């Protein structure tokens, strides 16, 4: 059954040739850099400081995790990086571009909810980015359909989102995100709405997908284990106002088979450090 989609991208196998996703706009790997970024919202009474001087960077193809409690400004930060909003002060560079339009051209945002359009089939949802770019629908379908098998979605191209499981919906959303052809992926708790078993499967699946399709990733999460398992480096954010309190290098070689990884001593030690950093 294709529903057991995790098997399709095999994490033990050596990386295959990249998915035929087309050219990634601009440079293949764009670095992200934030320098003393502040964001204040002028509320009705007191202005709210969401981010208080955030400084960090992500190298090209690096997977950086941002972990913090709810309401520490993680989502705000992703929107700022993506160029959907401007910081109150400070500078944000993506691939050397600091203007919002330049950032928007290099980043794609994948929110927590899959946000699939209920009036489109799974296939048409995945190919949304192509259609937006001006590719005609039949042509977009023809290009995207072969990828459904790789993403563990074979046989579900014509299904409506409400006929798919949570994990499958998330995979469709991820395919839509990748097809935007952007060098930087901003993932906002991408598996937050899934049950823990599906989430574990999807984390493994994402790690494998990123090995095939390397991108610069900024992953926001409130799940320490998820961040450590997926990322090269994890930053910890304090509660509002959000500022970076500490940073953890995750020196676990890839691929990381889930069971061996999360039960290894080094992982458990990292997890302990992480939980202390958050306490």
């Amino acid at each position, binding site marked *: 059954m294709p529903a057991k989609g995790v098997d399709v991208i095999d994490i033990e196998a050596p990386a295959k040739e990249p998915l035929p996703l087309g050219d990634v706009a601009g440079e293949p790997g764009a670095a992200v850099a934030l320098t003393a970024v502040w964001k204040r919202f002028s509320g009705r009474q007191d202005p709210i400081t969401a981010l208080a001087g955030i400084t960090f960077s992500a190298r090209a193809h690096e997977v950086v995790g941002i972990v913090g409690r709810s309401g520490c400004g993680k989502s705000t930060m992703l*929107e700022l990086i*993506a160029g*959907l909003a401007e910081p109150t002060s400070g500078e944000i560079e993506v691939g050397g571009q600091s203007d919002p339009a330049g950032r*928007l*051209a290099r*980043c*794609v*945002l*994948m*929110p927590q*909810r899959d*946000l699939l*359009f*209920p*009036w489109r089939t799974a296939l048409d949802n995945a190919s*949304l*980015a192509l*259609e*937006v*770019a001006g590719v005609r629908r039949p042509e977009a379908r023809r290009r995207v359909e072969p990828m459904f098998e790789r993403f563990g979605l074979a046989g579900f191209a014509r299904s*409506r989102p*409400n006929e798919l499981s949570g994990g499958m919906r998330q995979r469709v959303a991820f395919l*839509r995100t990748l097809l*935007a052809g*952007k060098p930087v992926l*901003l993932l906002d708790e991408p598996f937050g709405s899934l049950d823990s078993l599906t989430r574990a499967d999807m984390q493994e699946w994402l790690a494998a997908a990123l090995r095939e399709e390397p991108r610069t990733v900024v992953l926001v999460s409130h799940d320490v284990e998820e961040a450590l398992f997926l990322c090269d480096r994890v930053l910890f954010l304090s509660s509002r106002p959000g500022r970076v309190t500490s940073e953890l290098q995750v020196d676990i070689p890839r691929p990381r088979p889930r069971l061996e990884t999360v039960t290894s001593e080094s992982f458990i030690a990292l997890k302990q450090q992480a939980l202390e950093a958050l306490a």
Partner: protein
Amino acid sequence: MSWILPLLLLALGAGAWETLARLGSVQDYLLPAPSEVTQSLVDDRHLLLSDTWVTAQEVLLGFALALLVGVAIAMLLHLFPLLRRTVYPIVVASQAVPIIVIAPILVIWFGFGIAPKLIVIALICFFPVVVNTLDGLSSVDQSQIKMMRTLNASRGAVLRHLELPSSLPYLFSGAKIAVAVAVIGAVFGELVGSDAGLGHAIQVGTAQLLTARVFAAVFILSVMAIGLFALISLAERWAVSWARHPRYEGRQP
């Protein structure tokens, strides 16, 4: 089977009415019995049929015009906030002007043809279409818009791929209200100045105390409204089947 109950109620009402009209001393020209109305439907069928055709044409064309203009106005108001602030109050105000006042003026301007009727119908019908469609366009999930923007979607692409499809259920709600009142609009237009149509038949029938024929015309108008409403509902089921699904999550906060 949703039509059984309303039909039963109608039959019950007609039975009571029939009994009342026959037993009581009510004059025929004041309250004709349902049987007399039915008789008139049969006897005057040629007259009523040609009147129905005229009115149906007016209703369909007027409704189509309202739909076209309504959606266009809603889209313009949505795309241009300044326009919305300027024009929306005027659109609302247009509904406060009594149609009965405008209709004769329209006859003076456009004569006794179909044009003034279409304008009256469109004037009545475009309002629910504009209000509902505009509500639909503005209630699109903001995170969906952000997602579209990071997919490099232009303003037009957001409108075409996201805002318009997601406001279709609203548009249909507006269209259902509009089509029900479109029939009233047609009668209004005909009463003011026309030589054909069910409104004209009602006017002539009233003047000649042919009350049964008046009731027959009203009956046809009701059937027309129900039929058009059902037609729109059918189109709605076909076009926005996704919105009826219990797991449809597009409207979540």
